[in-house]
């Protein structure tokens, strides 16, 4: 490469100076990257450390330090330990955890299934004005949900729907449809048309083509939409606030309840609770991060 550009301005520097400059800029880059890692992870440090401090150890002066007595040390000495925070948080959140799984998993599966059918039609088996209809469906994912919340709350009352995860399950399926449709449509756009032509020649109808040719190759897109739907339903707070109550609502509501009830001295329990409530989505992110990013990027439409 250097030989190809003999007049390059960079070449006018002596080779030694150039190497030095390159090493310097590389070092600066890594120093910056590591500083940002520290900044991004600071809240995690605070969460973990504070959750392990018994109320007696909570003191502004030492609030950034490690626990004076680690819970396992304190446990042998008797008295309250940092583990009490975790017990308290667990007791506050445990009833809602099961409900939240029962809500998020079916919501993710059902909207993904519908999304794949829609994506198939909007990309491979179109009807006239399919693009317009698709755009109209897509709009649903960009609206501020406040715009439908007042009538939705009234509708829930009129129909006598319960203030718990059952109602939220339905709501998450409905408002997850646009993004699932989008992800599947983008995914199917890359399917070669010849595959469809071949199946048409074979005389296969739409459903057979979908079921025997398209569905089997859709696994990656299903992973993306299921993860995406699971995460957004799990982390949802808006619908939970408007449509459910703490006795029947998801873990986000229970966590908020725990945190809002806490005094400064009791931050440990809220922090333990935040870690417990985040564990499922964080695990999914750590194990299946690649697919999570896939869902994220689809939010930018193209």
């Amino acid at each position, binding site marked *: 490469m250097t030989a190809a550009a003999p007049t*390059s301005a960079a070449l006018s520097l002596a080779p030694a100076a150039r190497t030095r400059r390159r090493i310097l800029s590389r070092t600066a*880059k890594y120093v910056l990257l590591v500083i940002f890692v520290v900044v991004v992870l600071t809240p995690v440090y605070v969460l973990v450390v504070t959750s392990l401090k018994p109320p007696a150890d909570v003191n502004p002066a030492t609030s950034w330090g490690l626990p004076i007595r680690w819970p396992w040390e304190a446990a042998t000495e008797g008295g309250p330990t940092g583990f009490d925070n975790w017990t308290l948080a667990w007791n506050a959140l445990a009833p809602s955890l099961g409900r939240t799984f029962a809500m998020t998993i079916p919501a993710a599966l059902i909207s993904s299934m519908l999304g794949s059918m829609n994506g198939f039609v909007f990309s491979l*088996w179109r009807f006239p004005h399919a693009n317009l209809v698709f755009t109209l469906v897509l709009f649903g994912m960009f609206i501020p949900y406040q715009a439908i919340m007042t009538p939705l709350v009234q509708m829930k009352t009129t129909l006598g729907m319960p203030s718990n995860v059952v109602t939220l399950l339905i709501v998450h399926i409905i408002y997850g449809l646009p993004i699932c449709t989008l992800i599947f449509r983008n995914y199917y756009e890359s399917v070669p048309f010849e595959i469809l032509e071949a199946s048409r020649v074979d005389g296969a109808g739409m459903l057979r083509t979908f079921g025997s040719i398209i569905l089997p190759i859709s696994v990656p897109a299903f992973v993306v939409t299921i993860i995406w739907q699971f995460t957004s339903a799990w982390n949802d707070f808006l619908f939970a606030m408007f449509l459910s109550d703490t006795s029947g609502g998801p873990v986000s509501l229970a966590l908020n309840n725990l945190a809002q009830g806490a005094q400064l001295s009791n931050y440990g329990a809220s922090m333990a609770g935040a870690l417990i409530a985040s564990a499922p989505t964080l695990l999914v992110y750590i194990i299946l991060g690649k697919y999570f990013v896939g869902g994220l990027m689809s939010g930018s439409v193209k």
Partner: protein
Amino acid sequence: MPARTRKPLSRIRSWGPPLLLVAPTIVIIAVFVYGLIAVNTQVSMTDRHSLQPATRFVGLENYFALLTEDRFLHSLWNLLIFTIVFIAGTMLFGFLWAWLLEKGVTAEGVFRSIYLFPMAVSFVASGVVWRWLLNSAEGDRASGLNRLFESMGLGFLQNPWWSDPTWGMAAIALPAVWQLAGYVMALFLAGFRGVPIELREAARMDGASEWKLYRHVIFPQLGPVALSALVIVSHMSLKVFDLIMSITKAIYQTEVPATYMWVVLTGNDYAKAATIATIMLLLAAVFIVPYLNYTNRKEREGR
């Protein structure tokens, strides 16, 4: 073309099945997105300010009342400050991180995953720790970031964070930046990766320095990505609700239209809640509709 000569019946036979397959979604979206938006707009034009049913149509009266109300204007002002800091922060850090990671970094995947991880956490959970970090106490009683500044000899940086009446909303934007800068980074990284390799090669052949390569060749290619990021981040900003509820609860100091709407609806003022919601929808549409049009057009050109 044979399609032209087809009889109407066969046209129905070929359009019917795909339409039937998407029919459930079309019906659901028609009812729960467009239908409810219509009902919401209708409610916003009535006098239903309590649990009692509406007695009459009042036209745009609620809108005029709201747009001249100090409290609502205050919430819009808060939203504006939040949005400016949020957009500036996420775009700046997102771009910087993507640029740093763009090429030849050892363990790139690790850095990327760490920068992006806050996206996987809910605002409610991160609100717990940010409430602690943004504690307003200063001096001896300081904890959170104020304590950290003090112990690092940066005591002058101590401030009341979101309790500050003027700039409090800027402090609320910090957790939002923390949470979403990684997302903007992911978008920009995809943008960097999308720059054709031949362009870089050609610029290098011409003897362009590394900086000139970025300045004149690569950055101009990132325009569409920057636009996407801007639209997505702005519309997220408009929706901010969870974070504020979690850090400060619904108080006047940090009120934005989304939390104001919550307060109003829990007070059973349906018409006013619907009015706030319609204004939020209009604000979102200002960004989203042109954006959807733009991507649609681009897609058609790309075919």
